[in-house]
């Protein structure tokens, strides 16, 4: 799209700026359409059209304009949308580049920006002093959360959160380099040239779309005989051509963490009208840098005076950026209020561009001589030793009230913009994040890097080095190589002030804003001090100064100075609030990057997952695993399906996927000795070809895991663990093996995923698998319960366990995982032909509960000893050592009355208890009741024809036969305490 210069805005200055009118973009702001040039920020584009009013402040809803031209912007926060799902609140207009089709809206106003009902707060502001809410809204008691808080919450907040799921995607890249350079102004570019010359791998990062930093506004500095900005672009091109340099623009170093680790956020598509589908919206760079060079520059401060927040009041350097980079003037008749020479140069540039400079008001008696002389030459009135005492203008500044300092005579000067500068604050954010320590530079009233905590160096303005030649030398030296660059500035800058300016002192009640976004004024800070807040952190928290989304980039030094003055203490003794990451806000999506949807967390599937899904399985999450839960047939709900599965297993047989159980191969001559130490049981007596149920405790004696362990050979065990326990059990074993028993000759290997495990349980289990098994006699005599053997199943090497978690005749067929599907299919076909079925974890739970077999983590909870769980028999009495042997003997683990696992039968067989229900002896006692324990497992047992339950009950085994009570919300259920075996108490079925 193209347009004539006219509709690019009335405040474009012909011939100024670096943008080309050849490429334009249209956008809307609060419904009105505007044309911008490519390269415009939303701020420059709006200013080009004379739009200054862009937002409302947080607390008083005061009209606010554009204050800066960079990421420090506290006021111009807008809602920027590409479409309804791609809508972003709180976007800084000074950073966001315009793209064609952007829909932009102001925030925190109703019904409109120009007429905002919330502005009534401004009238009530005497009431809303800092911290007023701590002193009131307390009566009546419930009113805070019911009445006052909702009102406050609605009034607070800025943008409106997106309502739809974000359709964009984000990327992540880990990277390494020898030198990371943050900031690509003169200092950063020089350091990059120098470092690159040494052959070092260099990453040069800048948050702006182009390199150049302060050269965006500083049009008078010459480098190597070139205009500084042009030199920067040429230098970047030279660097980009070097194989050892990577330049990342539109990229913010947002965090400097431990050990040379930095977080970078790269904005990839937010400036594009039609981004490619593959492009991530943003890319997170996680960089490990051997060295870091900080060349982050400095941020200009505003002046703190009465009504210093009207639209049209802006930082001098921002006005200069808009003019020299974007070709936009911020007004036709511009006032200047400054305490620093740099603002003069803004006035000079504007003046030369044909803009009227109403006056330069300088609070200093003696500004730099050179700038004053130049002002005279250009015919600009300079009022030294003067102050701007107030401003007027409803939605935009219309005049400033100027007086000589100390005098009461004032005059009103009409202006349509006022540019201000109180000097420059070095950007020491990243340095501080790296945990470096700052020192206070009394002369220049600034904090500078002092003691470094990491391999890092600061160069240029962020290090207090402002003079161009010194800056280049410093940066070149930091790079480690040699470069010869000559730089020349027109004016050496002097001056600067922090704290409240004339007319906003302690004796006044004017609103002189320190923190614009949070509406913190100088008097708020004084009030905090008066109320006993003497630490800068207290002052910050009490006033919320520096806690807005700009994180105090403009306000912190002023706030500190005002507090110091009020406390009558030297400024550095008041302290400094912490510079916390991120430097500027970072999108959650960027931090999350790939970790969403399918990549949020791996969903582990067994080799037979697809087959089970095809068979109609419902799945449940167990840790990372997806496990088949039950297999509903047409018309079956969960209960019906589970009942059928349970019945079928006991009547015929069932097939179950047990692949997720953890498996560890323990190999070596000391394998049995090692297991003796790690399990409560004794293992040296276990013969090859046999298996045994084992209990593992931690040193504290509580049950940690359990599983069947098969001995394949003298020196080889196949250990199984719970599904969720596999990784931690292996870690626990490795810990003891490597650090407590390092002399044992044994090694551990995880084989969980090597084997697909197909459990076949039920009276016909043998009949089902027998034809598939080669090289093994499966008879009871040759292969009794708790046998294990290596054999061949369907032509592939297998491990076959005779074991049961159902109390039925059972086998677990282990085949190499890639064969799992084929063997499963064959077994399933044979099973179904005989009238059996597939069953899932729910039926497995019921079947094992019918037999009183525990599930670690359900029937135990980390406070249960083997004896509590009724597994005292599994604790060797002969061993002199195992992990847990001493913990088990502690007084509380030996005492009477511990909670023990028992069975519960409800008086009404149809009542199924709630898992987690609590048990009492007397249901009529008052609350708080004395609870005896809780229900750990409870099911309808189709095979028992009634409900069954297990519970941990204080002194439980001694209570067998007693009636206890389970008080529920609506009724109390009486239960009889029993042992834990509900089905086949004699245990004959397991032997076939």
């Amino acid at each position, binding site marked *: 799209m193209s347009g004539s210069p006219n509709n690019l805005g009335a405040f474009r200055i012909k011939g100024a700026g670096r943008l080309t009118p050849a490429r334009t973009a249209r956008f809307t702001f609060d419904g009105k359409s505007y044309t911008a040039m490519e390269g415009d920020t939303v701020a420059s584009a709006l200013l080009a059209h004379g739009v200054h009013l862009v937002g409302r402040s947080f607390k008083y809803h005061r009209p606010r304009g554009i204050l800066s031209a960079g990421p420090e912007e506290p006021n111009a926060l807008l809602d920027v949308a590409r479409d309804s799902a791609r809508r972003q609140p709180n976007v800084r207009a000074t950073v966001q580049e315009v793209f064609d089709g952007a829909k932009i809206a102001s925030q925190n106003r109703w019904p409109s920006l120009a007429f905002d009902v919330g502005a009534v707060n401004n009238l009530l502001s005497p009431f809303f002093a800092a911290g007023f809410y701590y002193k009131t809204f307390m009566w009546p008691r419930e009113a805070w959360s019911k009445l006052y808080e909702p009102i406050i919450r609605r009034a607070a907040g800025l943008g409106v959160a997106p309502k739809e799921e974000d359709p964009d995607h984000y990327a992540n890249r880990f990277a390494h380099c020898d030198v990371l350079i943050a900031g690509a102004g003169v200092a950063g570019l020089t350091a990059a040239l120098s470092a690159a010359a040494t052959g070092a791998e260099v990453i040069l990062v800048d948050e702006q779309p182009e390199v150049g930093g302060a050269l965006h506004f500083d049009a008078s500095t010459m480098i190597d005989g070139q205009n500084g900005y042009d030199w920067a672009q040429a230098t970047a091109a030279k660097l980009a051509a070097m194989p050892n340099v990577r330049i990342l623009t539109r990229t913010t170093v947002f965090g400097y963490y431990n050990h040379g680790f930095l977080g970078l956020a790269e904005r990839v598509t937010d400036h594009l009208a039609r981004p490619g589908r593959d492009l991530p919206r943003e890319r997170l760079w996680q960089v490990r840098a051997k060295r870091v060079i900080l060349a982050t520059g400095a941020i200009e401060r505003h002046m703190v005076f009465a009504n210093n927040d009207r639209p049209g009041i802006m930082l001098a350097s921002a006005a200069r950026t808009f003019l020299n980079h974007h070709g936009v003037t911020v007004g036709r008749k511009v006032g200047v209020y400054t305490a620093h020479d740099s603002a003069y140069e803004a006035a000079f540039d504007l003046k030369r561009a044909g803009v009227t400079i109403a006056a330069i008001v300088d609070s200093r008696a003696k500004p730099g001589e050179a700038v004053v002389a130049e002002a005279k030459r250009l015919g600009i009135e300079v009022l030294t030793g003067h102050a701007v005492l107030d401003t007027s203008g409803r939605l935009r500044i219309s005049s400033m009230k100027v007086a000589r300092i100390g005098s009461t005579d004032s005059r009103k000067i009409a202006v349509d913009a006022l540019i201000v500068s109180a000097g420059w604050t070095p950007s020491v954010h990243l340095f501080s994040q790296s945990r470096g320590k700052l020192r206070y530079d009394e002369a220049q009233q600034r904090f500078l890097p002092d003691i470094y905590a990491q391999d890092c160096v600061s160069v240029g303005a962020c290090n207090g080095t402002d003079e161009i030649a010194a800056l280049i030398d410093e940066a070149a030296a930091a790079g480690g190589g040699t470069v010869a660059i000559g730089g020349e500035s027109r004016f050496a800058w002097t001056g600067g002030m922090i704290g409240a300016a004339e007319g906003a002192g302690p004796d006044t009640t004017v609103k002189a804003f320190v923190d614009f976004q949070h509406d913190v004024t100088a008097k708020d800070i004084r009030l905090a001090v008066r109320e006993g807040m003497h630490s800068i952190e207290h002052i910050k928290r009490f006033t919320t100064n520096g806690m807005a989304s700009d994180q105090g980039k403009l306000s912190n030094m002023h706030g500190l100075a005002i507090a110091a003055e009020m406390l009558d203490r030297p400024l550095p003794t008041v302290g400094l609030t912490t510079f916390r990451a991120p430097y500027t806000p970072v999108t959650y999506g960027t931090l999350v990057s790939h970790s969403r949807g399918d990549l949020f967390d791996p969903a582990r599937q067994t080799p037979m997952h697809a087959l089970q899904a095809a068979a109609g399985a419902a799945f449940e999450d167990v840790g990372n695993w997806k496990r088949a839960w039950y297999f509903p047939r047409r018309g079956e709900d969960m209960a019906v399906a589970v009942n059928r599965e349970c019945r079928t297993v006991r009547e015929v047989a069932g097939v179950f996927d047990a692949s997720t159980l953890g498996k560890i191969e323990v190999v070596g001559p000391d394998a049995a000795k090692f297991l003796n130490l790690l399990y409560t049981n004794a293992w040296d007596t276990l013969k090859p070809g046999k298996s045994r149920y084992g209990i593992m405790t931690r040193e504290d004696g509580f049950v940690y895991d359990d599983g069947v362990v098969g001995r394949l050979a003298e020196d080889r065990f196949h250990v199984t663990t719970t599904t969720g326990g596999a990784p931690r059990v292996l870690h626990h074993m490795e810990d003891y093996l490597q650090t407590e028993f390092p002399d044992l000759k044994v090694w551990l290997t995880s084989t969980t995923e090597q084997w697909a495990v197909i459990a076949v349980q039920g009276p016909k289990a043998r009949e089902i698998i027998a034809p598939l098994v*080669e090289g093994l006699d499966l008879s009871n005599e040759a292969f009794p319960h708790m046998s294990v053997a290596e054999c061949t199943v369907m032509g592939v090497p297998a491990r076959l366990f005779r074991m049961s978690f159902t109390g039925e005749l059972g086998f677990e067929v282990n085949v190499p995982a890639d064969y799992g599907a084929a063997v499963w299919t064959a077994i399933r076909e044979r099973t179904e032909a005989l009238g059996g079925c597939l069953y899932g974890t729910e039926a497995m739970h019921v079947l094992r509960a019918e037999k009183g077999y525990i599930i670690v983590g359900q029937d135990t909870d980390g406070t249960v000893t083997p004896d509590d769980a009724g597994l005292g028999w599994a604790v060797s009495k002969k061993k002199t050592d195992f992990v847990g042997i001493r913990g088990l003997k502690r007084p509380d683990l030996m005492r009477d009355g511990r909670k023990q696992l028992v069975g519960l039968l409800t008086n009404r067989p149809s009542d199924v208890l709630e898992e987690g229900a609590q048990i009492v002896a007397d249901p009529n006692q008052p609350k708080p009741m004395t609870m005896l324990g809780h229900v750990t497992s409870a099911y309808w047992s189709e095979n028992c024809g009634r409900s069954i339950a297990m519970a941990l009950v204080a002194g439980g085994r001694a209570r067998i036969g007693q009636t206890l009570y389970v008080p529920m919300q609506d009724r109390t259920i009486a239960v009889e305490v029993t042992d834990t075996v509900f089905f086949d108490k004699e245990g004959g079925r397991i032997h076939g």
Partner: protein
Amino acid sequence: MADVATRTTPLRGTHGGSASVRLTPAAPAERLSLRAASGDVAALSRALGLELPERPKTSASAGGRTALWLGPDEWLVIDEGEGGLMAACAASGALHSAVDVSHRNTAILVEGQGAAATINAGCPLDLSLKAFPVGACTRTIFGKVEIVVLRTGEEAFRVEVWRSFSEYAFGLLAEGATDAAL
């Protein structure tokens, strides 16, 4: 007698990549997790027909077999040919632990100009040729799963991963490959 079981590999039929990276599931291979003390390395090396590497982060290949140093007493041995790793180790006479993990792991070949950047989408290792030359290998982390990465060429890696994590690994590699091509 039943049919002989057929093999169903993870990632079967999966392919992906971008303009600068190819992602290919590797063919099935025999794999051994081999553990032994340093004194037994020589005998095992002879038996396997390759020199088990004893320097960190290195691998050795011979006759279709590759041994990857994973730890001071641990190697992942991959045989893409005839197999027989278990038997070879058993015949060495050296004290060791050999566990067949052929089916535990699967592998994804990551090849092309953006291969390193692709892996760096989720892996914090420095994969520059200087830090991680051809033949370098290690166990490491990739997003939320553990992998073993072996550099097989200047622009080629083999990523070994446990089978149930392979879909996740492939998915993350695919996203990394897309981004690496930009």
